[in-house]
């Protein structure tokens, strides 16, 4: 499912809203999460999961193709931990 399909789906369940509004709503949510992570904050959505930012120290890396040494700067990476409820739902059905 891609974003436009998600927007469509939410709009179908909320027929009083314009598609454009739903699109704005979805973008507002995603932007809020992005901005929070950019500030270094954590985003915790019970039942769904939590987004956090982890710091990676600067390190000496290697170009795998040439073997040349390269220095990799310190960086932050986003990290998501699935919430309990969703984790359980993923395994509710019989596994094939």
């Amino acid at each position, binding site marked *: 499912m*891609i*974003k436009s399909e998600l927007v469509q789906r939410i709009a179908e369940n909320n027929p009083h809203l314009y598609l454009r509004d739903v699109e704005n709503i979805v*973008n507002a*949510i995603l932007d809020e999460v*992005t901005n929070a992570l950019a500030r270094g904050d954590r985003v915790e959505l019970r039942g769904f999961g939590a987004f956090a930012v982890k*710091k990676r120290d600067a390190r000496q890396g290697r170009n795998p193709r040439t073997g040349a040494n390269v220095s990799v700067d310190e960086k*932050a990476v*986003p990290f998501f931990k699935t919430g309990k409820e969703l984790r359980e739902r993923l395994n509710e059905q019989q596994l094939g």
Partner: protein
Amino acid sequence: MTKSDPAARVARTVTRADLSEAVYQRVGLSRAESAHLVESFLHEVSDTIARGETVKLSSFGSFVVRSKGERIGRNPKTGVEVPITPRRVMVFKPSNLLKARINGLAPADD
């Protein structure tokens, strides 16, 4: 380019309440309805993932479901080997834009 030092401020936790506030500010809906739509969003994403389907949100990232086979685990406390049953897990793959934003490399698109 100014990069805010994460150590300079106390990180806080953003919750559903903050997301509905963001929706309330952006779209002309009541607070109650904004909260309802945040739930609606999480609910749709959760349902899709629970069905085993990937959710791709461009410029944000994708939620991908992975199936893991049975493997042998170990109770870290007792050292006893126990089988870990096959299961499905969800992983989040951040988009390049999200990674750039977190490192202060891309402008905010407000």
